């Protein structure tokens, strides 16, 4: 046994394409570090962001990581599309099967765990406490730990690109393929630890936000006066704290199989691989709703604001949100009707799957009725919403079609399925997050984003999406299965794959538009400054604060008497509520221990992957030690006096 376990130089030598990726990661990281050094921003970064316990700052860090990972996952997507556009007949394509398998696995894992999740958590951190009229989340330090555990997971996936391989099993890592007997390398171990570490971070964040919503709302804001976004986050986080433990347990069992030779999911020894598939989707299906519910909440805020009307059917929206939360626990088996559980079981899950479309339909109609006879302004966020309605309805109907078990037997693991879930996640989750970013950007940074480039990005994404995925629906009907690195000529598939490839390029141009949008907006930030704090004629509490939101959120705790309190008071529809006097407040002091825990978690996980046992022990000890240091410190808050607050507040107004 060497000092470095099974890590050798061979882990670094993997041919020209991987070499290019390795260099990209390395020089990317070095370039960023050099840039920060050149700008002399290390101290600023450390004090203002890395050690900050302010939810708004943590939210921005989530969004930065999400943006980096979106580019990585997007490059994976382009590589797959390029391979499938050319790998037909005698042409084997440019990617060997082993590498292609890593690319589709990486794409799935990254887009779900390290793009969609951090976008959701980033937006929540940035805006939810302000929306609720509170100063911070329930547990600011835990929030920092959650972020760094998540980032440790993302870093592990990036590390797998440079050192060793990633899993070749697909993002679901079904056994027995993911067992030691068939995947002896480090790929599946990277997968397990990246998901395990970031999953625990997610679980802790889930607890944090539930308590924030239930216990930290402004006085007077009863549950039924909360903004719709808060309701959807509540539903989503309830799913996080009930579903992520299932993922933790499942990955734990796979770990025991791989590290200690147990027989949970092995092909022999009394294992049962379908147990894994059931457990995985018992987490996996709620996960879909974890992602999409907050996006539904974003759309509820966006549509009401840009239609100049209150949200239609608030109560039915709350009921629909909670119905989806509960029903999403009762549909997991539709991911594997082909298991052969029998007609009765399949029928139950098929019917439940169709039923869940009903509350979702309620939501769609509520949004449309909100627009009805409103003064609709077609801003970027509103366009993302309209694109979402069109695409999501198509994707949703494809889903109801596959909920019929006999139809699913035909379409199972086909490209039709791939097209379906991409429609749901891209239009539902990603468009929702993009709408949120455009909508709340001025609140966070103090200036609005360029509408021109936002709308260009919207069209590129929408048109590109249709070009990329409508061919996949057709290909699915033609019998093309997912994850093909090569297919015979003469099936008539190639033209459709080429169209899909062109679509992926158009989507990529949408990402380029977003990058230009960011650049142009920062360049013109003085011109586009949001001086009022209310650039969109908003309705909820966050628009009552100056932009960007001051670190204490509210100088005086707001008192809420009505839904959409800011709008109501602004237009004289509700009397001005009596304002609290300035009071001294406690805010959490910054702490670098979250970063220490995340770093130690990364070292721990990396060492587990490569069997470097001394580093495993060291990582675990550092994590425990950091927790002890935190527990012993009873002086974690700093006090801001009422006078200081008054001075800040009158200066900003």
């Amino acid at each position, binding site marked *: 046994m060497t000092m470095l376990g099974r890590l050798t130089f061979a882990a670094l030598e993997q041919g020209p394409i991987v070499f290019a990726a390795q260099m990209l990661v390395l020089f990317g990281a070095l370039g960023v570090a050099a840039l920060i050094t050149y700008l002399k921003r290390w101290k600023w970064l450390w004090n203002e962001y890395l050690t900050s316990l302010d939810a708004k700052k943590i939210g921005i860090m989530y969004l930065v990581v999400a943006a980096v990972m979106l580019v990585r996952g997007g490059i994976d997507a382009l590589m797959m599309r390029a391979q499938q556009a050319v790998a037909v007949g005698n042409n084997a394509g440019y990617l060997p099967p082993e590498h292609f398998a890593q690319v589709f696995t990486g794409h799935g894992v990254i887009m779900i765990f390290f793009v969609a999740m951090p976008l959701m958590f980033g937006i929540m951190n940035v805006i939810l406490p302000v929306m609720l009229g509170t100063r911070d989340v*329930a*547990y600011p330090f835990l929030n920092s730990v959650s972020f760094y555990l998540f980032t440790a997971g993302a870093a592990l996936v990036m590390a797998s690109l440079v050192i060793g391989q990633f899993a070749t099993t697909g993002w679901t890592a079904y056994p027995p393929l993911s067992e030691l007997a068939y995947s002896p390398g480090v790929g599946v171990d990277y997968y397990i630890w990246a998901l395990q570490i970031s999953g625990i971070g997610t*679980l802790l964040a*889930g*607890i*944090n936000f*539930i*308590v924030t919503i*239930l*216990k*930290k709302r402004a*006085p*007077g804001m009863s549950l039924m006066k909360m903004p719709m976004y808060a309701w959807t986050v509540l539903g989503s986080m309830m799913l996080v*704290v*009930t579903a*992520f*433990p*299932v993922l*933790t*347990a*499942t990955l*734990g*069992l796979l770990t*025991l*199989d791989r590290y*200690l*030779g*147990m*027989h*949970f999911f092995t092909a*022999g*020894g*009394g*294992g*049962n691989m379908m*147990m894994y598939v059931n*457990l995985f989707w*018992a987490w996996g299906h709620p996960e879909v709703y974890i992602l999409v519910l907050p996006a539904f909440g974003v759309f509820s805020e966006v549509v009401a604001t840009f239609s*100049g*009307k*209150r949200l239609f059917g608030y109560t039915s929206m709350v009921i629909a949100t909670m119905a989806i939360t509960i029903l999403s626990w009762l549909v997991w088996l539709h991911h594997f009707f082909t298991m052969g559980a029998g007609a009765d079981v399949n029928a139950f899950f098929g019917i439940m799957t169709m039923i869940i479309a009903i509350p979702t339909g309620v939501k769609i109609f509520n949004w449309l009725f909100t627009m009805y*006879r*409103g*003064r609709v302004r077609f801003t970027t966020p509103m366009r993302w919403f309209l694109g979402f309605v069109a695409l999501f309805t198509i994707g949703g109907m494809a889903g109801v079609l596959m909920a019929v078990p006999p139809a699913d037997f035909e379409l199972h693991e086909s490209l039709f399925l791939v097209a379906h879930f991409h429609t749901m996640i891209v239009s539902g989750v990603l468009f929702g997050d993009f709408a949120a970013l455009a909508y709340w950007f001025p609140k966070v940074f103090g200036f609005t984003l360029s509408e021109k480039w936002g709308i260009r990005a919207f069209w590129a994404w929408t048109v590109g999406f249709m070009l990329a995925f409508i061919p996949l629906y057709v290909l699915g009907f033609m019998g093309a299965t997912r994850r093909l690195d090569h297919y015979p000529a003469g099936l008539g598939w190639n033209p459709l794959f080429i169209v899909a490839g062109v679509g992926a390029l158009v989507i990529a141009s949408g990402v380029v538009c977003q990058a230009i949008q960011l650049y142009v907006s920062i360049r013109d930030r003085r011109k586009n400054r949001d001086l009022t704090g209310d650039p969109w004629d908003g309705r909820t509490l966050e628009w009552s604060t100056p932009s960007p939101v001051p670190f204490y959120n509210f100088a005086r705790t707001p*008192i*809420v*008497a*009505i839904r*959409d309190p800011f*709008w*109501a008071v602004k*237009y004289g*529809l*509700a*009397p001005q*509520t*009596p304002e609290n006097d300035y009071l001294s407040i406690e805010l959490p002091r910054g702490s670098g221990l979250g970063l220490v825990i995340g770093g130690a978690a990364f070292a721990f996980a990396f060492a587990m992957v490569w069997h470097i046992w001394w580093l495993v022990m060291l990582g675990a000890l550092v994590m425990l030690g950091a927790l*002890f240091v935190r*527990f012993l410190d*009873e002086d974690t808050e700093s006090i801001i006096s009422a006078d200081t607050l008054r001075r800040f507040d009158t200066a900003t107004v």
Partner: protein
Amino acid sequence: MTRDLLVPSVQVTVPPFTERREITLLGFWIYLLSDAIIFACLFATYAVLHVNTFGGPGARDLFSLPYVLLETFVLLVSSFTAGLGALAAYRGNARQVLGWFSVTLLLGLAFLSLEAHEFVGLVAGGHGPAQSGFLSSYFTLVGTHGLHVALGSFWMLFMLIAVYLRGLTETNVRRLTMLSLFWHFLDVIWIFIFTIVYLLPFIK
């Protein structure tokens, strides 16, 4: 357009700010819920795999009910003493807190020794967790519970030192409350383990 915004009554009762203790405890309850779900997964796995003995011994061949009954009593009594300790914490009696939680810690360690003895015996007899799906799920379910008891014991040791050094500060009382919740939770899990893993095979 704006008419549909109903004007509500302006009567707003301002509730006192929720105290930190209440906030922490709610979060801890939710953590316990999520931990219970981890155990639920392990129970489900055990339920599926316990018949997969792969030609090896089954539950009836390996377990001894009187021995497990002893483990159960040790753990149940420790839960009782932990409860007494928590009550003493609410009364502000630091000496009793130290006393009752020390007893609880000793009982917890006794439980862990009993369990370790059982595990060592099984492995020594050639029936380790790698033998069959049944034994994998058995060791993992019972072992995860044992791991929780071990972590709870460390926590208890930490709290004993903290109370000894700093007395019953607000922070310490809050943490003792969580610790006793955690300990009772492990008891509840054990009742299910006792019933499903150990008792059921002998009833059938």
